[in-house]
């Protein structure tokens, strides 16, 4: 919002707030005239005012709300710091103190046996003495460690050293989905990826007859490094025998958890299923409900059930259907169907298992991938209805290309699209024929002409490099029938020092992972186009496809951020990449140039190939 717009909105708001009902509506309508967006802005703010009042938002004073923070300081309670930096604790070395929690102290530590970093929690002595709490702790450790699933926080060890009880768990450097949501609006593809991982965790838990019971964005953690999702807090989880002997919320500590705290936070009541809200019998299907609520919130940007008070919210949960997702956001009808099924009031009408919901979401994810691919290829200037992974545009710093060598084969976009679609539907054809000791990679180039900085004519697809005009922009497509690790670098025109730009993986391409599934399409850039560098010369786009990850190249990933535009700024690392590429490109792969794509084949576990691009 601009300050001018703000002034406009605030002038109308100021008077409107003094009026009631129809008078208010009439006043707002009169003041805004034909400016619908202004009117929407004012109405939204008036609505927020009403909600903020009834939610007691910012009632009281900040210090009241966060006063406890003031006393938890290290020096406020110095007697609680049991371990110090560098100290040996059993087989752990304390690296840092992460803080003091209700249950004890948390440290960042290194397990010297396995040389891995862990979060080490040392329980305070009064808790260790409390039989009931210890029992609960053990139970929780048992529950969590029995769930050996990549999307569930791993418990490494539960033990005792020098009379101190401790738990060592995986250390997650990341943020919760709640914080993630506050930072940005998620793309549909991201929403699906996150939910699919949450459901995978729930599927494993439910298999083990464990109900989480408190699925919400605060309990979903996204690891910074690779965006892997971890479901947290099986603290409320209960082991259930079978659906027949279900749990009662009343006797659990869950009830105390669902309170609405004063101050600025919203309670956690909004994710409760109807049966939870009624303190009824609950089972796995309550987690399905909460997952549905979470998807809804991610898509719509607001929670489906959110009343002025917790009792209003409960009434909504029990009786109201939220506004249709397709009304509040641009999403496929299929997603709406999935979410509504997950949020059916009666557990019997919901997905009965996390697996069923998982299957539907995966199918949707796949379908959208294909559609987006067709959409992009046939008309990249008008994104298809569903935009998958519309990631940030490549930073301008990314230099690229062009001109080149060999004969070209132009295929119309439409034909190309259909072809892709077909091959997607028959992925097994290629997969079976490739021996393991060989690497196969195909690539093709999509070209878009530009005129007056606008896309001009339909894009076309090439098997390989051609003679490009200055006003062409391109996109590189890479795929392999095999799984493996892919790295793509751009090397600038020959200069004194080798300098590389990391094109793949990056935080926006494959979420920072080099790992590629069989038949997974990589498209760089995903949504925009590469511009040709104004600088003349031959540039190379290096393709490296390896059966295993390449340590030398993994290090380069750190540079694939928007700060450097992917440019590796460390001279040593540039040399490492340079040496790797030049020593491994000596064994040239077999090149087969088809009509629509170029296929590279190499013997052994590694394939390295430079696409040479010259521009004038």
């Amino acid at each position: 919002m601009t300050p001018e717009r703000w002034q406009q909105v605030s002038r109308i708001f100021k008077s409107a707030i003094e009026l009631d009902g129809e008078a208010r509506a009439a006043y707002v309508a009169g003041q805004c005239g034909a400016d619908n967006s202004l009117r929407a802005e004012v109405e939204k703010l008036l609505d927020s005012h009403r909600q903020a009042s009834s939610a007691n938002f910012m009632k009281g004073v900040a210090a009241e709300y966060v006063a406890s923070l003031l006393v938890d300081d290290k020096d406020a309670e110095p007697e609680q710091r049991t371990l110090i930096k560098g100290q040996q604790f059993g087989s752990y070395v304390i690296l840092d103190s992460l803080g003091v929690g209700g249950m004890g102290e948390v440290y960042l530590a290194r397990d010297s046996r396995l040389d891995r970093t862990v979060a080490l929690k040392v329980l305070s002595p009064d808790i260790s003495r409390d039989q009931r709490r210890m029992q609960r702790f053990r139970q929780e450790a048992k529950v969590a460690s029995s769930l050996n699933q990549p999307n569930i926080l791993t418990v490494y060890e539960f033990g005792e050293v020098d009379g101190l009880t401790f738990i060592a768990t995986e250390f997650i450097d990341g943020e919760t989905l709640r914080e993630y949501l506050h930072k940005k609006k998620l793309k549909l593809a991201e929403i699906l990826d996150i939910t699919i991982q949450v459901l995978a965790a729930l599927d494993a838990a439910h298999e083990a007859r464990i109900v989480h019971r408190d699925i919400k964005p605060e309990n979903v953690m996204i690891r910074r490094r690779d965006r892997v999702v971890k479901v947290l807090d099986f603290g409320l989880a209960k082991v259930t025998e079978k659906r027949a002997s279900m749990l009662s919320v009343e006797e659990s500590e869950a009830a105390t958890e669902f309170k609405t705290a004063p101050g600025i936070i919203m309670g956690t009541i909004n994710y409760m299923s109807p049966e939870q809200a009624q303190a009824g019998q609950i089972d796995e299907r309550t987690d399905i409900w909460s997952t549905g609520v979470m998807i809804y919130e991610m898509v719509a940007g607001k929670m489906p059930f959110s009343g002025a008070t917790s009792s209003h919210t409960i009434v909504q949960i029990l009786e109201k259907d939220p506004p249709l997702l397709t009304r509040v956001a641009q999403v496929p009808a299929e997603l709406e169907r999935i979410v509504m099924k997950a949020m059916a009031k009666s557990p019997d009408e919901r997905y009965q298992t996390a697996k069923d919901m998982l299957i539907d979401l995966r199918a949707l994810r796949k379908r959208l991938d294909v559609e987006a691919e067709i959409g992009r290829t046939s008309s990249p200037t008008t994104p298809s209805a569903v935009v998958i992974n519309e990631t940030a545009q490549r930073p301008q710093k990314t230099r690229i290309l062009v001109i080149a060598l060999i004969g070209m084969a132009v295929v119309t976009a439409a034909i190309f699209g259909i072809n892709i679609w077909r091959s997607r539907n028959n992925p097994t054809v290629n997969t079976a024929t490739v021996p393991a000791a060989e690497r196969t990679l195909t690539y093709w180039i999509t070209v878009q002409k530009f005129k007056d900085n606008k896309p001009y004519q339909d894009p076309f697809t090439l098997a390989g490099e051609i003679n490009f005009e200055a006003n062409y922009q391109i996109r590189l497509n890479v795929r392999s029938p095999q799984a493996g690790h892919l790295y793509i670098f751009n090397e600038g025109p020959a200069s004194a020092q080798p300098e590389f730009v990391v094109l793949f993986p990056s935080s926006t391409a494959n979420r920072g992972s080099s790992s590629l599934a069989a038949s997974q399409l990589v498209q760089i850039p995903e949504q925009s186009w590469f511009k040709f560098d104004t600088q003349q010369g031959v540039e190379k786009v290096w393709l490296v496809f390896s059966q295993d990850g390449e340590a030398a190249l993994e290090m380069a990933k750190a540079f694939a951020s928007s700060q450097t535009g992917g440019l590796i700024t460390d001279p040593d690392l540039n040399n490492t990449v340079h040496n790797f590429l030049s020593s491994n490109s000596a064994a040239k792969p077999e090149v087969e140039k088809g009509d629509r794509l170029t296929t590279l084949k190499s013997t052994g576990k590694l394939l390295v190939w430079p696409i040479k691009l010259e521009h004038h």
Partner: protein
Amino acid sequence: MTRTPRQHEITQLLAEWREGNQSALDELYPLVYDELHRLARRYMSRERKGHTLQTTALINEAYVRLVDQKNVQWANRSHFFAISAQIMRRILIDHARRHAYAKRGGGAKQVSLEEAAAIVPNQSAELLRLDEALKSLAELDPRRSQVVELRYFGGLNNEEIAGVLHVSENTVTRDWNMARAWLYQQLTGSGAN
């Protein structure tokens, strides 16, 4: 502790700042920060967790301790409260940030294994987000953001705020309503950017 020279110094600095000397504020800031911080900590460790912290009482005490009462003027007092509100905000945000990676908030009632993983506590995260939103508001509308600061962080009532900002109480009420609605939008994600 010899209080007199300090009192004199702070009173002097307040007067200079009121007269438009910005560097006086730079000197004043750390002095008031330390005092407020110390008092807040003392209050809270005495009261223990879960109790409320009376911000105005706290600032009042700091004021009495720091400012030479013989030369007291209302203008001095209102300026002191204005800067104290800003400093209380700073103190709480500093704490929230420090805690952000240290632990999860509150829940001592429940044994949670994941407290062991470094997770941002709710309270701290909420407060940090509020602070961010308030910064954005300050860019759009400095006065309304100041109203929020004085009221929410400084614990001043509308009458006091009106005195500090030289506006009517009605204006303060309206500013607060608008600012709070906007912040609510930002924090609940129901707002469009």
